[in-house]
């Protein structure tokens, strides 16, 4: 066969993403008013109306059989549509094209397209849609709030501004089980160092009484948080997949590189603002910080988000949005936090290296795993390489990742402890265990092992795991009790 006759593989991709509210254009001829956001925007008006109409029909039809639980997805040969109603009558719809293979035909006939309909997992993309909304809400508050504040026009503006950029950062081909969990990776730490961090947070909050909440991360992993879990979960997602990766490039660059931001005068510490002013000494510097919305007793509260980083340690300080932040405040914060955070960062690094040396050199393990704890959202994966803004690399075959997803679907159906062990056609063993709100998924590359040996291997892994787990859970539980 000629080289130009090869099959082409296409990964799942975003076909469209839209938000509508059927109550905004209930009469015939007014359908366009329902549509609050539509991507891609250059779609012809009538087609937009038709596609929204289909979604409305699907939702309405499903109610015939299931009045209380709304439709979540529609499967068709070419694509899957995911529906989510985050607030009354507001619907978010994401349409994802199934992966496909294009087979060329002879004699200049158009190529044959084969859609792979079993590749997309509903749970994964359903979670992605929810994440989209949570991210919007983190920076803008609810849809209802925008309508209250400035009518439908204001909501349309906000949606346009946010999703235009956010949708470009969606990488649908690399979404997997971790998106379903939406967990937080915790940094394993000894008690002493943990206490040091806690006292640092207390000191800062005491000296700068404007600070309402604090979160502390090291190496993109969480150590301490004063926020509610669900707020922290989405803030963590933002920090680790968007903000930190954007700033990691200059950090990695050499000291003399033009990429490196100018370090402000004194070299007493490595602290700098990741949000707000890049250079405090700059007379033109603006002291504006992104605003975020987190849940509070009476609905939500609006906060300034200050992210301050020294080496691998990052601290997030949240201050009530009604307060105006000044140059003086930022200088004060920089002077107080900068040196301490620099010191703390090198302390943690040192401790971490010692601990690693004690636990011995890492052997090449026979297995890879994903762990998730529903109670504290702790997640750990040895399957995923480092997450970056654009891709989330995994070290196992995508089919195995999907088998993990299948097992997870199985688990989510019943609310009891279960264990599943399967052997794939490639002879890999995949084990899923759910017990006491925790889920563990292991992939074993021991092709000649039998069920009993696989079971033994997983038992050994679980034993090493308990120790690691106590450190993590202790971390989050402590932080919650401090907050209350």
């Amino acid at each position, binding site marked *: 066969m000629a080289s130009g006759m090869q099959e082409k593989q296409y990964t799942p991709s975003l076909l469209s993403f839209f938000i509508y509210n059927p109550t905004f254009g209930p009469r015939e001829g007014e359908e366009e008013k329902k549509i609050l956001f539509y991507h891609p925007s250059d779609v012809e008006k009538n087609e937009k109306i038709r596609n929204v109409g289909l979604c409305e029909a699907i939702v309405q039809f499903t109610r015939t059989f299931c009045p209380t639980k709304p439709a979540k997805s529609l499967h068709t040969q070419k694509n899957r549509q995911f529906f989510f109603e985050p607030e009354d009558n507001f619907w978010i719809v994401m349409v994802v094209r199934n992966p496909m293979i294009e087979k060329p035909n002879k004699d200049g006939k158009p190529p044959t397209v084969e859609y792979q309909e079993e590749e997309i997992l509903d749970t994964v993309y359903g979670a992605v849609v929810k994440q989209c909304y949570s991210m919007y809400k983190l920076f803008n508050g609810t849809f209802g709030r925008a309508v209250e504040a400035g009518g439908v026009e204001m909501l349309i503006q906000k949606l346009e501004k946010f999703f235009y950029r956010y949708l470009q950062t969606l990488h649908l081909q690399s979404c997997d089980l971790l998106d379903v969990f939406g967990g937080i990776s915790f940094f394993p730490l000894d008690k002493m160092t943990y206490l040091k961090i806690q006292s640092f947070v207390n000191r800062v909050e005491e000296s700068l009484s404007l600070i309402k909440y604090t979160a502390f991360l090291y190496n993109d992993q969480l150590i301490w948080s004063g926020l509610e879990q669900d707020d922290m979960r989405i803030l963590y997602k933002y920090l680790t997949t968007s903000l930190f990766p954007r700033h990691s490039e200059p950090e990695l660059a050499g000291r003399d590189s033009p990429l490196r931001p100018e370090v402000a005068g004194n070299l007493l510490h490595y602290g700098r603002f990741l949000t707000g002013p890049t250079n405090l000494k700059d007379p033109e510097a603006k002291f504006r910080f992104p605003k975020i919305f987190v849940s509070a007793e009476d609905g939500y509260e609006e906060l300034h988000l200050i992210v301050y980083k020294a080496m691998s340690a990052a601290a997030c300080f949240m201050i009530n949005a009604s307060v105006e932040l000044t140059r003086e405040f930022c200088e004060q914060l920089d002077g107080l936090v900068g040196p301490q955070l620099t010191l703390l960062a090198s302390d943690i690094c040192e401790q971490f290296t010692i601990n690693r040396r004690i636990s011995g050199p890492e052997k090449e393990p026979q297995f890879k795993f994903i762990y998730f704890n529903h109670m504290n959202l702790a997640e750990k994966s040895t399957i995923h390489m480092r997450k970056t803004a654009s891709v989330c690399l995994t070290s196992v075959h995508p089919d195995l990742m999907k088998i993990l997803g299948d097992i997870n679907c199985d688990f989510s*159906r019943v609310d009891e402890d279960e264990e599943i*062990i399967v052997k794939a056609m490639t002879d890999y063993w995949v084990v899923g265990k759910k017990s006491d709100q925790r889920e563990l998924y292991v992939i074993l590359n021991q092709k000649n092992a039998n069920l009993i040996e696989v079971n033994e291997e997983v038992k050994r892994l679980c034993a090493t795991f308990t120790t690691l787990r106590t450190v993590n859970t202790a971390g989050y539980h402590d932080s919650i009790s401090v907050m209350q």
Partner: protein
Amino acid sequence: MDGEGQRATVAWETGTLAPVDRLRTERADSPTPGLVEGTEPGAGGKSAMFVHAQSFEDLTAEAEEEALRGAELDKSEEDCTEELKALEEQHNNDFSSDGRAKEEDVSSEAWRSHRKHVFVLSEAGKPIYTRYGTEEALSSTMGVMMALVSFVEAEKNIIRSIHADGCKVVFLTKSPLVLVGVSRTCQSDRELLRELQYIYYQIVSLLTLTQLNHIFQHKQNYDLRRLLAGSEYLTDNLLRRLDRDPGLLLSAVTCLPLASSARDVVSSSLQAAKAKSLVFSILLAGDRLVTLVRKKDQVLHHMDLHLVFNLVGSSSSFREGEGWTPICLPKFNTAGFFHAHISYLEPASELCLILVSTDREDFFNMSDCKRRFLERLSKRSAYQTLKDALKCPSYSVAQVGIPELRHFLYKSKSSGLYTSPEFPVVYESDEEQERLMGLYQDLHSCLHHPTRPLRSFYRCSETENLLAWVTSGFELYLCFSPLATKALAVSAVNKLLKWIRKEEDRLFILSPLTY
């Protein structure tokens, strides 16, 4: 599990189960995964019985006739109407209308909460069948279903399913019909589609696809219920079977346990009672196959066989005498009818003989075949053995002697036959049986995933432990009590395979015959 298989080989070769039978020498020694298809326990000695069939040449005459009729129909709309009227009359005579208790408020919670709804409609959106409630009351709902199908079709796309928490809707478009399943079970889309396929073929088996196409080509708006009136109970019954009968899940049938010597006599008696146009002779004991003799080179698809089982099992009218009914075996040929002679060997007996002929004028011929078969059979002691076997049509799992094993399904792939013990006390109630079937369906669905199939699946839950294993030769599903360990499950596989090998003469049809 490979390691376990290996061990089994060793056990086998040390001669604990030394093969003696003539067939045994050619058969593989052990049920390991490496074993060649056709040598697993239960594999038939000759070629397989139930595989996809080619079109049957003898039927072309009828197909041509059908086409001729079609040509006539083309002439005028009026002719068509008349033709339909004739058909309707014929069908109304065929099916005695059993009144179904279907009056149900279709907006009520009770109607909504049925485990599984099935709807059949025409491409014009006209209701044809609903499992619950009446078609009239659901005509607008079915109209919406059709609208959804056509809307997606207009985008050169095909609608597959809608998912909500705890409820899914699956669509199957089989022009000129559309089938919709609504389920509250955990069944996968694929399992539901398989069930809708069955329903589709059930309808085709009553009308042939050729006729179905004709009708709708000439009158898009035709109300097919006029033709199917009185036959709904067949679909109702098939749906019940789908929930309960492992055979429909496994694409296999199960046999009446019978000594092979007796079965061979029954088979040869049936073989001797042949006729020119006879294609299949099937002897049933309730839902179990006693034997099947077929015309050389003709094979019966398991789906067709299940449709025949369903026809026989759904109707008591065949008990009243010799039945003669046209039946289309859609997996064999969707274009034409066979004619089936259906009768019980004795009035109160479970034994039902089905003689499938290609000739619609063949009733007396078939009746004669039956007489000859009975004559031969009565002369032998085998008939008594057969009647005795009817007294214990199944076996209990305790006979296998594996602790904590509650139930299992074993399918020999090459013969298309499966064996399974009766349900133990824990699964005695209908709900529990359906739940267990649901679990098996789940395992089946995972193992046979179209893009990521699995070799084995072990699930440990609070109510039971399950193990499923597929090789090129067999499929095995085991259900243990939750107390069973993994080690026990692994050793149970070997024990069970040995047991089945030992019992295969009785449990399977090892030497199927042709005329």
